[in-house]
């Protein structure tokens, strides 16, 4: 009897010995629902914590995709200073949340973020941060990044990075098809000369050839396990460049010689990451690459911004953690925004690609994700989530005025996604 009591006491002692570490292990919860004061900077806090080797758990679908971080004073301080709402939890409160998130009957899960992703942004040398939504978001969230361009990519430097963002580049070598409107503008002419010179320096006769080489290198980077994120025209122009690798789709105003009249027939869709069966726009004066973009940019679509919304799909957090991570948001219906490539025509998306968001009841797909080799790619249509119809020369968006932008959150989901520890899927 005494022996049995001793055994029970022993078990209790062992349990109690472990208990303080649970109770004392306070946590900081950064809620990402409507209570968050600055959703965008919250991602910056998670990133900052990772740079300090502080454990971060991403609680998928829990209060808008909240972050659970070790309850250190430094974290609380940084949240306060950056204006990010947080809640201090006792060990038991945190445990309760973990239990709720992990319960089989809830569509939630906890994903451990392991390390701060090394980020590269593919931009030309004369790039300004305000011209690109992703760099705007990173600057605002205080997430550091490096800039790379053709030379760095071709030299294989992408291997140094976990995540690559493509600025709204034109991989077809048609300089954004701005010729009709800006063909005589000094910036356009200088840009074309600069690109041509760089192409020659790198041993290519044409800009379209160097862009294709870069596109292929990026594809190799993805195949080797890289994460690529592209917005606006970088999405469709990337796939078009890959598809057109055996032909010439550039008119003489872009590369000095005529386009191949049979270019359309020579497209090789098997080279594309996301799209297939599209028809390229061969008119060099039309501000559009292909019929992937919907609504087409030329003529400029007339649409009422107050009725333009897209809907994020919901995925199973436990069975499909990747699309779940990419769609974490505090709202599921998000206001639309245009770009040179606004959205993707559903019928032209490869069946292997996951649709993450669409404009309900239409052919317009806003946000897609797919795998290639050991890596992934994500395409997000539109130019700036908080500037409905961004134009060349438009003033930069001040994200201090859009701290809770659901559209910008999507970009930042992508930045943190490579930090997630890969765990075996349940299916």
């Amino acid at each position, binding site marked *: 009897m005494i022996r049995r009591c001793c055994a029970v006491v022993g078990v209790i002692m062992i349990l109690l010995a472990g208990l303080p570490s649970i109770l004392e292990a306070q946590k900081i919860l950064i809620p990402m629902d409507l209570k968050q004061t600055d959703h965008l900077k919250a991602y910056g806090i998670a990133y900052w914590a990772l740079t300090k080797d502080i454990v971060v758990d991403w609680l998928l679908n829990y209060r808008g995709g909240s972050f659970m971080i070790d309850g250190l004073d430094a974290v609380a301080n940084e949240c306060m200073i950056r204006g990010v709402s947080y809640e201090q939890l006792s060990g038991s409160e945190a445990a309760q949340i973990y239990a709720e998130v992990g319960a089989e009957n809830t569509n939630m899960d906890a994903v451990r973020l392991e390390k701060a992703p090394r980020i590269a942004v593919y931009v030309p040398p004369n790039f300004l941060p305000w011209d690109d939504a992703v760099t705007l978001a990173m600057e605002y969230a205080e997430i550091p990044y490096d800039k790379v361009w053709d030379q760095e990519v071709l030299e294989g430097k992408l291997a140094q990075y976990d995540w690559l963002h493509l600025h709204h580049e034109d991989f077809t070598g048609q300089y954004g098809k701005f010729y009709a409107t800006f063909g005589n503008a000094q910036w356009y002419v200088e840009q074309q*000369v600069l690109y041509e010179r760089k192409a020659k320096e790198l041993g290519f006769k044409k800009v379209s050839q160097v862009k294709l080489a870069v596109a292929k290198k990026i594809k190799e980077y993805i195949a080797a396990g890289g994460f690529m994120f592209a917005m606006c025209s970088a999405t469709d122009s990337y796939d078009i460049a890959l598809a057109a690798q055996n032909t010439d789709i550039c008119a003489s105003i872009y590369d*000095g010689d005529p386009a191949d009249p049979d270019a359309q027939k020579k497209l090789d869709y098997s080279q594309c990451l996301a799209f297939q069966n599209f028809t390229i726009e061969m008119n060099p004066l039309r501000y559009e690459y292909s019929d992937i973009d919907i609504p087409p940019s030329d003529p400029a679509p007339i649409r009422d911004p107050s009725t333009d919304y897209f809907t994020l799909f919901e995925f199973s957090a436990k069975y499909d953690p990747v699309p779940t991570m990419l769609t974490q948001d505090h709202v599921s219906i998000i206001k639309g925004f245009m770009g040179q490539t606004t959205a993707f025509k559903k019928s032209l998306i490869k069946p292997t690609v996951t649709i993450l968001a669409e404009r309900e009841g239409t052919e317009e797909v806003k946000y897609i994700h797919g795998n290639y080799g050991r890596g992934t790619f994500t395409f997000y249509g539109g130019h700036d989530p908080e500037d409905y119809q961004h134009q060349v020369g438009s003033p930069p968006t001040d994200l201090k005025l859009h701290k809770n932008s659901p559209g910008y959150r999507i970009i930042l989901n992508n930045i943190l996604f490579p930090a997630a520890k890969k765990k075996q899927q349940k299916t």
Partner: protein
Amino acid sequence: MYDGMVLRHPARLFYPALILFAVTSLLYPQQRENNDLRFRLAQSYDRSGDFQAAIKIYKDLLTKDPLNTVILNALRQDYVQLKMYDSAMVILQGQLKRNPADVSLHCELASMYYLNSSETKAVEEWDRAIAVSPKQAVTYQAVAGSMTQNRLFDRAIDVYLRARKATSTPKLFTGELAYLYSITSKYEDATREYLSFLGQDPLQTGYVQTQIGSYTSHPEGLAAATRVIEDTAKSSSNNLPVLRVLAWVYMEGKHYDRAYDVSKAIDEKANAAGHELASFAQRALHDKSFTVAATAFRDVMDHYPKFDRLAEVKFGYAQSLEASDEEQDTLRLFGRDHPFTDDQHSHEREASMYAAAVNAYEQVVKEFPATENAARSALRIAILEQEKYFDLAAARQSLEQLVRAYAKFPQVMMEGALRLGDIDVLLGRLDDAGTEYRTLAGKGLRINPIQDRAALRLGELQYFRENFDSALTILGDLGRNANSDVANDAIGLQAFIQESLQGDKPALKVYAHADLLRRQKKFLDALSAYQSIIQSFPKSSLVDEATMSIGDIYTLLGRYPEALTSYQRLMTDYPESITLDQALMKIGEVYQNGLKDSAKAIASYQTLLEKFPLSIYVSEARKSIRELRGDAI
């Protein structure tokens, strides 16, 4: 017989020939029409992009008419469309055999070689084109144009330069070269060419500035352009168009001091009698380069006493002397007062600084008495007397004169009247102030923002005079107009009076008096008045406000430790006060700007963030913390 035979034989030949001629005559137009139709069909194939079908027809047509240039050119273009450069070259070579001196054919052939990746052969062909007529500028133009079309800009530049040598015309193709240099980022060369162009046509200063301006937005473009223009100006110091471009490029680079020297030189050399300098001075003033602006205005005044716009120049001069880039205190944490001045002697220093400005304004008033510049000068004098010299009597006198003398400039007159009321408040002439404000505010619809400001002042005046009901009526009226700039201030004071009136009227009376003393900058008297509230009405809801005001006055007096004690007392003794976030912000400011203690400033801002995350001061507190810890934000 013979004759007959002879006669008969031609007749025998004549008739078939006649028939043949008749048939041919009938068939030839038909055939020509048929060929035309086929040519048009081929062209329509071209338009639809079916080049193969078009080529077939062109080839067929050429069998009948092998030298037809129109068909040959059409066929050649189709070959180019299909990148069949060898076939296109065969046509061109054939055409060149027939017309070896055709420069454009040589250029076309060179383009084909280039497109076919034979740059060396292309260059040889372009050389052959030049050799056709090496003394003619037009030859070089055609060749350089062909190279430019193939985006060989550097080669095109070389050809234009060769043209200059070959034709012994050093200024040939300046526009073309300048453009090519600018798009290839050779900004020094581009600038040289544009200046050369200006030398050829001195009336094109504006055009040249626009062209150079296309690359001066890049730092390297600006530096290169400045270097070249400076060098050119040195070697031709009497060249006015170049000097104008030099002054312009200095202003582009914000080097107003250098631009001033150049503008002065232009003015002298052009006998502009001050007009060049005056224009420069206005731009410098507009661009906030006040010292240079003042010097330039002064020059005009000194050297051209009969200048036609002298009133404007003198007013500009006075403005330049007075103006400074004072930072605005957007938080208005300490109301109308600005603490944390550098030292106690700053007022004296300011007074000596502004003496010249006052003098300049007085000159305008004296010399151009009936002008709007004089009215504005009179207003500025009064403002300086009030704000910089603290000579309220003089300021009052100036404003009275202004209101009387410049009624025909209503905006200036109203601004003067409002300020006159303010000075009356400072002097304790509350009745006079009331009259000024009342007259200005009017009774009907207020259309000028100055009228709203006057009405707010009237409400404040009623508050200072302890006429709280009257104050509430005025303030309530103002607060209802959400479009008014003064609505927030009106609502704030209205709410304060309403809350304090409930059971605290005696304390409110003392508080209003203390506020008046503070407005009148009688800080020590105000301090005593606020302290008396704490002593006499210790349970009043105004005690926390009084404690805050005491802290503010200590801050304004530079007595920072006492200010901190006061704010901290507020924190400890009145934990329910709604002003605690403001107190923490002020503690931070006193540590940061008064005592220069960054660590304690950060601690105070952090406490504010912790305890009052929804305060209106949080973003400013965050910004201050990040500045103090040296974050790159």
